């Protein structure tokens, strides 16, 4: 179903400087002069022998890079050297400075300003400096300088340094002998401190992050950004953890005209919180690029040192509840009718799941084209070799080809498809001694599918809004021949979740190692309420499969003559209230196999309350019966709290309880988070403890406004249940 939450922006950080009344300084370059020209306007001008010119009476000087205004100015060498005095204002693309005097030597391209107050252009960043020097090759150097992102007059925190340099071309400022002041109280001293000064190309937080938690102790990360070239950059972030030691995180990004990618390494030498002080690491390589016109290369390759890495040290790419990391390399070819996809699919599985299969390689070729006026021909073919991390487990090479002739009829009011397919598969299996698998197996199956759907609609009113209501009945007859497949191992096949969307798939298993015999009719219907923008306000789908014959491949599990009834409803009462539920009921025994209910009141991304319940009778041997409440509400303009608890009713205990409160002002924010969650650490034999909890209080201090537009991970995304990881799509 389609969620059209009012604002599906994932990180609900409020507009970065919403609390600041101060608008950042802007600079328009239209006012500048062409290269090399200098224009001076004044009430009175005196030029002597075309070498010295004296200007007085609100003098405005415009060069090709900056605009200077002063009460008087002297230009000699006809525009080469300039001295301006009397409350001088200098502004260029990087900063705006008020000072007593400005001297410019254009031959050495060096400009100096004395006792200044400055503001950075583009975002709120200002302070004072005894002396500012602008030099084309070194950039900007500020001496005896103070800097803050708080607005003038509201300097809640400030950096004072003997020198800050903003290097040319980098987005990075370096400060020497830096003292941090919070409300004029010196807090700590750093001999060397670097911070981002513009938010051009950075993504994520480049700003120092200071937190403390029971797993890492005080946790201080200080990123350094190195702008190697316009399309290469590197961020090196040493991370100091009082409980564990110093970890070095390095991210190298590249962007070329035909490809882009990222190499990322985290390395923690001798973790002092674990017996034996092991070295611990996590690495990730991400790449996507065209190797030739239609050839696309995709890499998503990860690895880590031990099972507990994610739980102990966290990661931006994986949640601590994750079970495996991807090690995929794929090369694919696309054209109008033909697509080829070659993949090496390997995984780093956490825990002691020793025998997990991997496809090294898996080559899929799909050919599809219209065939005459009414037919469509589709050929799926595949070659795959499966091996296993456990040497003794069976391995196999599988050849599969599946030609399909289909007669699709599609129109806006309905869809009919008649399809016949042949599945021809050949296996060569090894390590089969002592199992009922055979070395060479060949399987030939036929399948016929008839699918029909009609789309009705009518105008109606729904809670006094006029809507268009649709009714979409669907019916499908599926026949698949039977062949005994017990001689084939399970390599990439496992039963598929049959929710409403899965009923019409005509496929009971993933992969190809099991193709179940079918002689069944599937009935389903969907009704939607669409508002005038064609957006779903209400969607109800129902469906069930009726088996005309007991099926033999998975005889054990299905003894009723019909599948579970699957239903799903999504309802948006009005702009604030959302309801979602899906359920699967075994109609003979009226037992609920799976149900989930969610109700949410949402005003905007920072204000919502969500209640949810999930029940699964049997999910690989376990019963899931879990209730959760998650809420976020601002108390006042600056105070915001977030709370969430998820409770496992089956074992009557809370899985995660998270409470956070955040004070956010214009240029800084402090966040106090208390959380208690299931600690799924692995013991030495790779088995996870099941009733060990991990609780901690973490204080996070965030300098805002420089570089990053808000905190890297808002409280909503923090913790177990809040976390959304990005997948890399290939």
């Amino acid at each position, binding site marked *: 179903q389609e969620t059209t939450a009012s604002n599906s922006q994932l990180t609900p950080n409020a507009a970065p400087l919403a609390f600041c009344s101060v608008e950042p300084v802007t600079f328009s370059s239209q006012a500048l002069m062409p290269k090399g020209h200098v*224009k*001076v306007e004044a009430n009175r001008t005196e030029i002597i022998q075309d070498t010295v010119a004296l200007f007085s*009476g609100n003098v405005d000087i415009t060069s090709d890079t900056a605009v200077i205004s002063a009460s008087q100015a002297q230009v000699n060498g006809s525009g080469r050297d300039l001295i301006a005095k009397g409350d001088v204002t200098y502004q260029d693309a990087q900063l705006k400075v008020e000072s007593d005097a400005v001297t410019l030597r254009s031959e050495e391209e060096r400009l100096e300003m004395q006792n200044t107050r400055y503001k950075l252009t583009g975002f709120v960043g200002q302070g004072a400096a005894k002396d500012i020097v602008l030099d084309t090759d070194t950039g900007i150097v500020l001496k005896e300088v103070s800097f803050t992102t708080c607005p003038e007059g509201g300097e809640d925190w400030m950096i004072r340094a003997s020198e800050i340099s903003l290097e040319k071309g980098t987005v990075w400022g370096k400060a020497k002998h830096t003292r941090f002041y919070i409300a004029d109280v010196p807090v700590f001293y750093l001999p060397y401190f670097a911070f981002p000064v513009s938010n051009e190309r950075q993504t994520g937080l480049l700003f120092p992050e200071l937190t403390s938690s029971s797993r890492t102790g005080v946790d201080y990360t200080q990123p350094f950004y190195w702008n190697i070239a316009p399309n290469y950059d590197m961020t090196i972030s040493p991370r100091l953890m009082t409980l564990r030691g110093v970890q070095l995180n390095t991210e190298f990004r590249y962007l070329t005209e035909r490809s882009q990618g990222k190499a990322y390494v985290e390395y923690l030498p001798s973790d002092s919180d674990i017996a034996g002080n092991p070295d611990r690491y996590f690495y990730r390589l991400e790449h996507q690029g065209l190797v030739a016109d239609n050839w696309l290369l995709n890499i998503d390759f990860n690895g880590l040192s031990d099972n507990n890495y994610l739980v102990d040290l966290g990661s931006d790419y994986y949640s601590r509840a994750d079970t495996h990391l991807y090690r995929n390399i794929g090369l694919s070819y696309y054209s109008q009718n033909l697509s080829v996809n070659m993949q090496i699919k390997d995984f780093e599985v956490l825990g002691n799941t020793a025998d997990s299969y991997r496809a090294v390689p898996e080559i899929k070729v799909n050919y599809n084209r219209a065939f005459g006026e009414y037919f469509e021909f589709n050929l799926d073919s595949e070659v795959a070799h499966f091996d296993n991390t456990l040497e003794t487990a069976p391995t196999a090479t599988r050849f599969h080809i599946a030609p399909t002739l289909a007669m699709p009829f599609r129109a806006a009011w309905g869809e009919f498809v008649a399809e016949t397919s042949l599945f021809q598969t050949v296996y060569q299996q090894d390590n089969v001694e002592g199992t009922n698998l055979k070395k060479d197996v060949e399987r030939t199956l036929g399948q016929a599918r008839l699918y029909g759907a009609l789309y009705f609609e009518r105008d109606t009113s729904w809670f006094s809004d006029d809507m268009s209501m649709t009714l979409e009945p669907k019916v499908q007859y599926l026949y698949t021949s039977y062949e005994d497949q017990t001689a084939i191992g399970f390599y990439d096949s496992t039963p598929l979740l049959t929710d409403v969307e899965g009923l019409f798939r005509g496929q009971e298993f993933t992969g190809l190692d099991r193709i179940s015999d079918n002689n069944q009719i599937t009935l389903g219907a969907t009704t939607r309420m669409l508002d005038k923008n064609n957006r779903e306000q209400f969607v109800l789908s129902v469906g069930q499969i009726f088996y005309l014959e007991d099926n033999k491949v998975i005889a054990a599990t299905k003894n009723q003559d019909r599948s579970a009834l699957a239903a799903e409803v999504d309802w948006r009462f009005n702009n604030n209230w959302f309801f979602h539920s899906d359920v699967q009921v075994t109609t003979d025994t009226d037992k609920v196999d799976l149900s989930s209910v969610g109700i949410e009141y949402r005003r905007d991304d920072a204000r919502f309350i969500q209640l949810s319940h999930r029940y699964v009778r049997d999910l690989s041997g376990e019963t899931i019966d879990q209730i959760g409440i998650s809420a976020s509400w601002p108390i006042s303009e600056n105070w915001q709290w977030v709370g969430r608890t998820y409770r496992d009713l089956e074992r009557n205990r809370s899985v995660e309880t998270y409470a956070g409160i955040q004070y956010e002002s214009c240029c800084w924010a402090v966040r106090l988070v208390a959380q208690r969650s299931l600690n799924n650490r692995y013991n030495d034999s790779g088995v996870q403890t099941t009733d060990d909890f991990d609780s901690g209080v973490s204080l996070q201090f965030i300098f805002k406004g420089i570089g990053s537009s808000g905190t890297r991970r808002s409280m909503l995304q923090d913790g177990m249940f809040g976390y959304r990881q990005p997948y890399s799509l290939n």
Partner: protein
Amino acid sequence: SEDDFSQPIKIGSNTQFIDGKNKTALYKEDVLITQGSLVIKADEVEVIATDGSGREIFIARGKPASYSQSLEDGTPVSAKANEIRYEVVNRTISLAGSAELQQDTSKVQGDKITFDMITEQLLATGGAGKNGEGRVTTVFTPETIRKTSSKKDNKDNE
């Protein structure tokens, strides 16, 4: 340049009124005055020669009137204004009314500009108008920088 001033002054115009007694003359319509490299073009020029030849005062008016001459070192100077007043004896020129003077390649615009050709000293005032229309605008261009550095060199090795 200096020898301009020893050259004869030629004046051409469509009509002219000479007042022999108090030695003033008024030339009208396409007036052209030349003296060596000095050229003045205007709609109307009034010449006051009461103090005898070599001490004349020319007042040229036009929309605008224009003046050009090449200085000691050969660099050209040109100017335009509603009224140009050229005093031969002390070699000064004063422009009034949207005046503009181009020297080398630095150009000065303002309400009143006076330029002493011997000391090559220029003074421009803006008349302090409310919204800046009385301001003096000076534009330096890159060639000036290249040129003056060469002038500086030959000054050094003089």
